[in-house]
């Protein structure tokens, strides 16, 4: 059962090597643009053909290079939500949805879907007459109408403005909870991945460099690239100093983590929002700081600060809850000091 993918695709100057499986729930594929996420998704849908490998869905083989199997997209029962929704511009909303339905009971089913996706009253509109959010609802309704055994979502919120994005994320989350099958959501937005995906696979340059429980990957990224893609903006080369200590070379300070630091750690990361005012906390990871730049934002202060007065020390970003005075000293909890491997 579930969706199993293990494919390779070789092109000039780029190779894709992806392997993952998912039973149900939402798997996020997080990666920068050009990391091969979309190509992978297209291969699963049958729009692209990989060079070799195997794709299985609910016990059916969709693709197997060793046996020469390459099912056409029509026969895969895989739903694909395109980045810009790919609604047929010359058909009305009702026509777009009924495209995906078998002939019998078409009208009743369209009506049911229109109700379920809050589209009542828009039956006769053309896609260009809809808001971005409505367009997405139509696209999702059309996708679900075909009763796919797996859903693939390609950057589903990238075409929406910020306000609508939040609203549609909530709606999609509710829809995905009802949908029983496996869902793969491709995104480059770490917030989206964190909100919507139970599990996560991180892609870089066509390879899956990490996978696991989303919350765990965010709290313990382990690799420099994963830390970066999950939104950690402060990363410094580091050297383990034995025990739970390590030396952050760019920032010129010693940091203490919550666990013994392995010998192969090469870097350290601290998320900007994890720094706190150093009042109550003890003396662990406490630094007298100097400010380079500060920005006052609606909900927070963000700033670039130096942790040490060593010559050549690099600055890092901090984001503090809004208060009247910026503190002279900051600290960070040991569990928020992330030891990382890999090249900075």
């Amino acid at each position: 059962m579930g969706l199993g993918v293990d494919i390779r695709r070789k092109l000039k100057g780029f190779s894709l090597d992806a392997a993952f499986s998912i039973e149900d729930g939402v798997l996020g594929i997080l990666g920068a643009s050009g990391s091969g996420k979309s190509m992978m998704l297209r291969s699963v849908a049958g729009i692209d053909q990989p060079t070799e490998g195997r794709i299985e869905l609910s016990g059916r083989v969709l693709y197997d290079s060793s046996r020469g199997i390459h099912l056409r997209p029509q026969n895969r029962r895989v739903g694909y939500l395109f980045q810009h929704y790919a609604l047929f511009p010359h058909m009305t909303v009702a026509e777009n949805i009924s495209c995906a339905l078998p002939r019998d009971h078409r009208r009743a089913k369209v009506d049911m879907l229109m109700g379920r996706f809050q589209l009542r009253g828009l039956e006769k509109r053309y896609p260009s007459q809809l808001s971005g959010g409505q367009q997405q609802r139509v696209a999702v309704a059309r996708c679900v109408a075909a009763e796919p055994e797996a859903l693939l979502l390609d950057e589903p919120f990238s075409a929406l403005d910020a306000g609508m994005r939040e609203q549609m994320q909530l709606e999609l989350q509710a829809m995905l909870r009802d949908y029983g099958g496996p869902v793969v959501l491709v995104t480059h937005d770490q917030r989206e991945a964190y909100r919507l995906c139970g599990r996560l696979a991180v892609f870089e340059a066509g390879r899956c460099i990490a996978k696991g429980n989303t919350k765990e990957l965010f709290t313990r990224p382990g690799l420099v690239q994963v830390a970066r893609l999950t939104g950690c903006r402060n990363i410094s080369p580091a050297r383990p100093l034995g025990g739970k200590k390590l030396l952050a070379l760019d920032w010129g300070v010693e940091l203490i983590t919550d666990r013994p630091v392995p010998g192969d750690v090469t870097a350290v990361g601290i998320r900007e929002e994890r720094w706190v005012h150093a009042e109550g906390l003890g003396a662990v990871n406490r630094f007298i700081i100097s400010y380079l730049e500060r920005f006052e934002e609606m909900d927070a202060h963000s700033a670039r600060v130096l942790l040490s007065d060593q010559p050549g020390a690099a600055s890092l970003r901090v984001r503090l809850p809004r208060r009247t005075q910026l503190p002279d000293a900051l600290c960070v909890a040991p569990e928020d000091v992330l030891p990382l491997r890999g090249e900075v």
Partner: protein
Amino acid sequence: MNISPVLISIRTSIVSICITFVLGLMVAKAVAAIRRPWIKGLLDGLCTLPMVLPPTVAGFFLLYLFGVKRPIGQFLLDYFGVKIAFSWEATVLAAFVLSFPLMYRSARGALQQVDSSLLDAARTLGRSEMWVFFRVELPLALPGVMSGAVLAFARGLGEFGATAMIAGNIQGRTRTLPLAIYSAVAGGDLESAQDYVLILLGVSLLVVLGMGSLSGNRRSLRRRGEG
């Protein structure tokens, strides 16, 4: 004025535009699907060639292929008893060959403009390739396809050089309007020539009007498409 050139021209241009329309669309679709760039380039060039050749040169090649003593002409005569050269069918052949590139190129351009994710979306929804073509690809490409067809029709109607080469100028059989104008002028019958010219002028004006309304359609479709 002898009415027969008018009737011959109407028959020829209608039959040839039907063939050109279907074949042009099919070949455009087939060439677009070819993956190897050099084969694609070669076929593309071959399909465009009659457009850039002088019509008499195209006619010469047609005569070279379809003449009674030439390979294709001989084959058709031996096995089907059909003689192409200097028959009414030759006027259709000439009009088709010379108008085909216009249809082919417009259709190819118009099909290429259609967002391929729409076609992929229809496929993942379980729709057959036939459905995808007739319900999504063709309707969205229609304004471009139709303006190609109008151009091709006009080209076929006005065809002179190649027709004269392969079909000749036989009164009542292969003398189309352009040839009749030429013959009338050559014979000093300017009055008939004027009548023929007025008929062609009328049709040309209709074609221009047709093109205008098509591009109007195209604009409104784009408006619907983009919002």
